[in-house]
């Protein structure tokens, strides 16, 4: 296999943006039929490197060769034509089109100018058969689950005869079950001779799928080893450049009286008769499969969606919540699952984003007190170690971890009694994850209550005082003895 030239060779790739050198001469080699895990903290340059490969960015220097032949990608089209398919975290499917239409978008099979629909359909069925899955070809993609949409993306890559497939956080939006399924498919594709580069933050996954691991730090190579010759802690060490104490910080909070009580919360079909309570100083984890109704439940509590029925009490007092404004006034904060779409105004500055829920406190008679605002932002930036050039930097230009910290900062400043974290560490590097765990611990030590939604079972088991498992809009189980719980136990409840 290694006698022939490598499938892909990237050498000395340099790319800088105004103010940042994202890549300082990175080398990457990928062989046929191999799964390469590309690791690194946020901002290490993984995504930039893949965008160079995908033709979205043009490198300042360096060479790319496929099968030993030098390539120069001036656009995503040229990269795709050379057999490279890059799947970004945000899917590029057109929501209103069916799987078939999406797969052949831009390369429709036509006969005399008309789309040969039956041919396309047949080929799509073949592709999905090759992947070993069944997808409804008649419904628009927006009706498919996230996992199914991802499979459509993969089929689309295969339809283009892609020989190199890049997946950026392929399991970020999947449940463990769906992720396992995806791993099988990835292994299968590799057996068929496709080279796969997978970018991920979940180290368990690396052991499940990768043949080789390559680590980037600060835009340069720091290490590359076959999977058999690296351990989990070595990976972390390479990524962060230091050893972390453990995955989860130790807890010292003492749990008190019930703080937030929810009774018979309903908005079918997503949420059916959900009741639970969170106590002072407690982290309550809500877990389950994607689509189990976890996010929908907390959105009802927060007033983001109208509820059909149900009561919400804070410290025994009935709350009349009909909008997020009411919930915030009562002392509830929600850190949304999707930072970019729901948590932040990406084009606006760190300062403006921070101030949004806090303007009431930072203004007098409708006028914003700019000096106080800057001071408050400055304090939070220091306290949370947010890496920003200035308060005026647009949050859209920050790394995922720093964006999440800005979201955190804006809610911490509100001093909420109950904070709801929806997938707080999704797409965040190990170092930043640990910092966020520390912050959550700090909050419960101060007597606050936290509801944490998470699909990552190690995180659920490592952080929660109590676990609620949801399935199909209902609470199907509660685990109170977390230290003795196992991932299998949770999964069983989740599939109830």
């Amino acid at each position: 296999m290694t006698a022939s030239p490598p499938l892909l060779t990237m050498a000395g790739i340099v790319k800088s943006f105004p103010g940042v050198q994202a890549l300082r001469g990175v080398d990457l080699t990928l062989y046929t039929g191999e799964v390469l895990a590309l690791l690194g903290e946020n901002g290490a340059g993984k995504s930039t490197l893949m965008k160079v490969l995908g033709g979205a960015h043009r490198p300042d220097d360096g060479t790319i060769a496929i099968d030993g032949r030098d390539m120069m990608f001036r656009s995503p089209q040229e990269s795709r034509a050379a057999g490279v398919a890059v799947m970004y975290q945000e899917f590029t499917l057109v929501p209103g089109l069916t799987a078939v239409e999406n797969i052949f978008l831009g390369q429709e099979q036509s006969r005399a100018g008309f789309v040969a629909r039956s041919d396309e359909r047949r080929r799509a069925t073949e592709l999905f058969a090759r992947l070993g899955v069944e997808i409804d070809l008649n419904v628009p993609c927006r009706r498919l689950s996230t996992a199914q949409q991802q499979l459509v993306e993969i089929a689309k890559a295969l339809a283009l005869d892609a020989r190199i497939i890049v997946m950026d956080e392929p399991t970020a939006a999947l449940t463990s079950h769906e992720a396992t399924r995806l791993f099988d498919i990835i292994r299968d594709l590799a057996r068929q001779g496709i080279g796969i580069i997978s970018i991920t933050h979940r180290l368990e996954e690396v052991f499940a799928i990768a043949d080789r691991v390559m680590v980037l730090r600060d835009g340069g190579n720091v290490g590359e080893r076959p999977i058999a010759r690296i351990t989990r802690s070595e990976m972390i060490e390479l990524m962060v450049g230091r050893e972390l104490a453990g995955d989860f910080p130790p807890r010292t909070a003492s749990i008190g009286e019930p703080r937030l009580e929810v009774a018979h919360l309903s908005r079918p079909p997503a949420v059916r008769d959900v009741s639970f309570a969170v106590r002072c100083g407690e982290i309550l984890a809500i877990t389950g499969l994607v689509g189990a109704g976890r996010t929908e439940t907390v959105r009802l509590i927060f007033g983001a969606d109208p509820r059909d029925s149900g009561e919400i009490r804070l410290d025994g007092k009935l709350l009349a919540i009909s909008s997020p404004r009411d919930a915030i006034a009562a002392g509830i904060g929600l850190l949304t699952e999707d930072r970019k779409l729901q948590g932040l105004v990406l084009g606006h500055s760190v300062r403006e984003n921070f101030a949004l829920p806090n303007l009431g406190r930072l203004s007098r008679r409708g006028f914003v007190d700019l000096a106080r605002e800057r001071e408050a932002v400055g304090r939070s930036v220091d306290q949370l170690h947010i890496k920003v050039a200035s308060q005026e930097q647009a949050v859209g230009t920050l790394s995922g971890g720093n964006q999440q910290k800005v979201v955190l900062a804006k809610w911490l400043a509100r001093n909420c009694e109950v904070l709801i974290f929806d997938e707080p560490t999704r797409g965040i590097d190990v170092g930043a994850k640990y910092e966020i765990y520390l912050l959550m611990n700090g909050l419960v030590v101060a007597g606050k209550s936290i509801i944490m939604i998470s699909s990552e079972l190690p995180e659920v088991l490592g952080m929660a005082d109590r676990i609620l498992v949801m399935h199909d809009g209902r609470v199907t189980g509660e685990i109170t003895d977390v230290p003795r719980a196992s991932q299998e136990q949770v999964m069983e409840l989740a599939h109830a």
Partner: protein
Amino acid sequence: MKQRLLTDYGMVLVLLLLCATFSVLTTSEQSPTGEAAAKQVAAAIGGQHGRKLRVLIVAGDQPGDHVFAVCLDRDFAATGTRVLKTVTGGPKEARDALAEIAAGGGTIDAIVCTQAAGKWLVFSDLGTDFPAVGTPQLVVPQTYRWPNFLKAENLLNIANQIAVIAIVAIGMTMVIITGGIDLSVGSLLALSAVVTAGIIRDVLGGPEASAGGMLLACVAAIAVCGLVGAFTGLMITRCGIPPFIVTLAMMLVSSGVAYILAKGQSIYQIPNSFVWLGRGANLLGVPNAVVLMLLLYGLAHVLMSRTTLGRYLYAVGGNREAAHLSGVPVDRVFLFAYVACAVLAGLGGVIMASQLKSGSPTYGGMYELYVIAAVVVGGTSLRGGAGSMLGTLVGAFIIAVIQNGMNLTNVESYTQKVVLGLVILGAVLLDRFRHR
């Protein structure tokens, strides 16, 4: 810093460049008139002679000529120069005056006249026609080269011409910053003008209307527009209809109602005093409409940059969902934007009625497009979440300067449209490149 200046005020540069271009193109021989001319001539005479002079003042019948004569009279009285006679009118009057002085046996040391009067044939053969007056020196104001474009009156004219569009553009900027659009402003302008004029004619008794009554008529018209804006806002927030559709519908409705109310006619039975707002100039010669415009821009700038509401407008446009989940009263913010836009369109209609001393349903045609153009040229993004009031003011002035400059350089009105369209495209293109 230099970078920031360029990105934030790039459009100011474009505006200055346009002004410079039109200044060069319109530079021509200028003769001072009115008080400036009088001062210059009086100074010239005072410097030439040490003794008391006998002068004849000759002014034409153009605007400013009367002022010229009066000011000279006053200045000469102060210096002790003897004014034999002051003539205003044509060459015939000047000839009569000369004949009278000659008949009376007086001599003239100097004939002081305006630039235009200095060219009259009467004064070319004084020696033979009126030997009795002696050999008077002909004193006229010195000419100089100066751009027609850069004259104070032209600049004020530009500001006055754009005041209505600029004022309406304040509201449009807010709406566009929230990520919306308001197509109804042109029709609201007409509706407001018709309602104002209609109330003055039918309720207040036409030309005999009192000032207080007229003020109430204006307020009523603006309130009507405000109600339309509130309806628009509610349709958008409560029923979830896209702003484009709602305001397109309201554009047709408002225009139709304006035609119905005015019965398709222009309403002009309005007191002369009503033009105070549109044509008057009480502060240092700056038209009242321009003063109002600048005042409103100041207020709007403070609103957008310093208040909670301003922040909310940007946030709602930048990411509606994130703003909602951050506790921003999203619906109320949208409602405010559309009401503010409609109210300002109503105010624009009142100003227009005052400028034209009538109200007609044909007012404001295509204005929504000019207003949107001003906002977009001013750097506000149609995607929402970004933009500034001062940018819009600059954008409005860019459009006004182009129109005015082309009028001064005698560009045909059809060609003007073509140029204006291309300039809007060019300005936005330039903006794109700068932000890349």
